[in-house]
């Protein structure tokens, strides 16, 4: 029985993993494959995508026809359970606008005056249940940004260190895409990627338009099975030394079907065609018999012995509201960057008054998100196009990787780091808000004319979003609020946030570029480009690429972790989520979180084998 109540834990475990998402799922998976006994603690409820996903349900019978609300900011059918920008009973603290006082975060939509937006989910599998599944590798430049432009922080590892782990993760989770050999946009090893789906009509139009602008448009990399995985060979490749995991993975891969090119991945996937920790990482790990999971377990702090070694964690059993303690040789935090930092800062034994693993004072520091700015346009050539099923993989089949590395290196740009462009549009399933504003767009039409107009305009809108790299700065960090506690009695986080001119200029550049693309498609922008970067940029945290806060480095004086995510101060304590990131390349972080977690866990296993931990 791998899902256990808090009263049924073993006397002790080899490793406790806090969190069950991309990082926790990957970490526990690698540990279980190696025969290590793992206890996973998840703050949310148990969740099963196979039985809970509304696969073909239509907005017709959804509340408010499925539109986003404060309860479900990504729409009714979004897989997120118990979370969002606001988690009941678990506040966080921000500033609003120019105010200097701290207030509880309230907002669940944009625009917002909040200094930071913190997205959490409280469910098994965490945010992997609804993530965008864009799986872009960081490139060589991305690990050594300071060497390139003198800003930010270099990683204590480079692309070559992570490349084999990218291959492993892509093989394990299944990623479609292509190898284009573009600058700082790494190829996967041959045979790793699944074939990408064909582009949609609007994607082909964007590609043609971008060719005139010198912007590459290439197949996206997405963690969706465009075909079934090779269950005979991949398990052997990934786990040559673990027959048990080979068997467990083979069985799980057999249950994963290929995409049926329908229904949105953000709902989850009952046929396991996309990546969710709950369908990809956890089932084979559980099948080895080496993993126990306790859900509704809200971790408060790491316990430490007199020698300064981690001994386990204290958590609140949410159902009984009881405080419990579990023990292990090693503790791995994988609770999300900020939540892991919160646990460390709330762990204050006598010898670590400023928080655990925080002798550098860097826990909570260098919080980063992705720079986001967007623009929509209407494309007349798509009007009255013959209907066809354009659902596809529900997310983008094509994207635009950053294309101006050389201009930046030559000092020709007024911002240092790159961005890629994501886009969506076309003939997607309508929800209750799809046609909002269309009557006004059509000049106030109603009646039979309105129906004709809607036939003409449906499917002709395209939205573009720039997703750019932020340079870490001293003004962006989280810390423990001195007064406020959550409903579990755990002190909460408050967030400091300030974009620098690097990000603001980048956002303004995005606006200009996105307008150019729309116009090159023969389209018209729905609102003029916002060239004031301060206004063009989405608020911090809104892209939900929360990384930083437990930075890795080469020097214990200015970093929390070494290159293997091991705390300098506490040898048997690791952090494997987005926290160790010291830069946040424009490449969406989840794939790198998993690759980095796998590498860190391999190191952890080796240290355990050597008896060093």
């Amino acid at each position: 029985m791998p899902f256990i109540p808090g009263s049924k834990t073993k006397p002790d475990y080899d490793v406790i993993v806090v969190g069950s998402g991309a990082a926790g799922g990957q970490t526990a998976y690698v540990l279980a494959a190696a025969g290590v006994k793992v206890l996973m603690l998840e703050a949310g409820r148990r969740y099963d995508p196979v039985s809970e996903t509304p696969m073909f349900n239509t907005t017709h019978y959804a509340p408010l026809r499925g539109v986003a609300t404060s309860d479900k900011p990504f729409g009714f059918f979004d897989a997120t359970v118990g979370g969002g920008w606001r988690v009941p009973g678990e506040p966080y603290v921000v500033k609003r606008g120019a105010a200097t006082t701290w207030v509880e975060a309230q907002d669940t939509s944009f625009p917002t005056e909040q200094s930071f937006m913190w997205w959490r989910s409280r469910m098994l599998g965490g945010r992997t249940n609804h993530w965008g599944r864009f799986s872009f590798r960081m490139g060589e430049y991305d690990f050594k940004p300071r060497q390139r432009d003198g800003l930010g922080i270099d990683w204590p590892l480079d692309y070559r260190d992570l490349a084999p782990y990218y291959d492993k993760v892509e093989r394990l989770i299944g990623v479609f895409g292509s190898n284009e050999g573009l600058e700082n946009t790494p190829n996967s090893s041959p045979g790793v990627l699944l074939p990408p789906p064909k582009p949609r009509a609007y994607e082909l139009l964007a590609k043609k338009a971008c060719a005139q602008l010198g912007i590459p448009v290439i197949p996206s990399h997405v963690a969706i099975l465009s075909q079934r995985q090779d269950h005979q060979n991949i398990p052997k490749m990934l786990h040559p030394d673990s027959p048990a995991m080979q068997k467990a993975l083979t069985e799980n891969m057999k249950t994963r079907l290929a995409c049926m090119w329908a229904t949105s991945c953000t709902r989850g996937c009952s046929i396991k065609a996309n990546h969710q920790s709950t369908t990809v990482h956890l089932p084979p790990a559980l099948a080895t018999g080496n993993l126990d999971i306790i859900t509704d377990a809200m971790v408060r702090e790491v316990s430490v012995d007199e020698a300064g070694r981690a001994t386990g964690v204290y958590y609140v059993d949410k159902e009984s509201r009881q405080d419990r303690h579990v023990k292990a040789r090693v503790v791995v935090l994988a609770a999300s960057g900020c939540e892991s930092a919160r646990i460390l800062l709330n762990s204050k034994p006598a010898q670590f008054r400023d928080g655990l693993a925080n002798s550098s004072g860097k826990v909570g520091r260098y919080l980063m998100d992705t720079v986001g700015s967007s623009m929509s346009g209407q494309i007349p050539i798509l009007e009255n196009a013959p209907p066809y099923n354009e659902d596809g993989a529900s997310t983008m089949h094509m994207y635009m990787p950053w294309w101006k590395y050389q201009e930046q290196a030559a000092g020709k740009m007024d911002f240092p780091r790159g961005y890629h462009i994501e886009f969506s549009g076309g003939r997607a399933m309508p929800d209750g808000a799809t046609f909002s504003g269309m009557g006004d767009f059509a000049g106030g039409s109603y009646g039979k004319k309105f129906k004709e107009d809607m036939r003409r305009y449906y499917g002709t809108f395209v939205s573009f979003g720039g997703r750019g790299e932020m340079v870490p700065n001293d003004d962006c960090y989280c810390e423990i609020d001195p007064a406020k506690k959550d409903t579990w009695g755990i002190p909460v986080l408050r967030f400091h946030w300030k974009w620098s001119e690097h990000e603001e200029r980048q956002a303004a550049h995005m606006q200009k570029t996105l307008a150019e693309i729309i116009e090159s498609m023969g389209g018209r922008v729905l609102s003029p480009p916002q060239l004031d970067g301060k206004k063009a940029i989405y608020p911090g945290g809104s892209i939900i690429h929360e990384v930083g806060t437990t930075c890795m480095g080469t020097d214990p004086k200015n970093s929390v972790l070494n290159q293997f995510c091991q705390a300098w101060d506490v040898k048997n304590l690791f952090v494997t989520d987005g926290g160790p990131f010291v830069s946040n390349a424009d490449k969406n972080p989840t794939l790198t979180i998993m690759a980095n977690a796998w590498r860190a866990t391999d190191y952890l296993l080796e240290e355990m084998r050597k008896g060093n931990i």
Partner: protein
Amino acid sequence: MNSNPTHRLPRREAIKWVLAASATLSLLDLRAFGAAASAPKGYGLDANLLETYNPGDLWPLTLTDAQRRTATALCDVVIPADDKSPAASALQVVDFIDEWISAPYDPQQQQRATVVNGLIWLESESQKRFKNAFSQLSPVQQHAICDDICFAPKAAPEFTSAAAFFSIFRDLTAGGFYTTPAGWKDIGYVGNVALTHFDGPPPAVLKHIGLM
């Protein structure tokens, strides 16, 4: 879809609730109706996603019978039947509009007073101009009013509020209509079916967009 009357508040309660939720009422006197009924909750952060939900299932509806008659007539002025699809009322779009303006979420609550007041205004305008209920007017008479309010940027100053109402009401009518199977068919949404492979746009589409 249904319009099960048991899901609806008693008329007086409904009016009270609508009015109490609005801070910007100009047409009626709040004081006559006393305190607000307690506000309902939303569906929360862990709703059953596999359930079928109908208007009135999650929170009580708002519109009175008279307002429903007005709304039904206006829906059909916005989306009448034609040779491709039925009128909005045939797809119970009014139930969706009522669900929307009754929802406990801020954006919907902000539109509630606009819609209810707009419907009240529409009735009084019909009586003023044609001495009859909006639902009883001829299409020519209905259009005479709607032409004055269908496009806010060009509406005369005295119709500013009514035009704001019409814009929201048209959005809601379209939102309710185009999320039904008949609405999908009308605009040519042909997805949400399982496929063994994704072929991309067919030749007719490629020709249409000049890529073949």
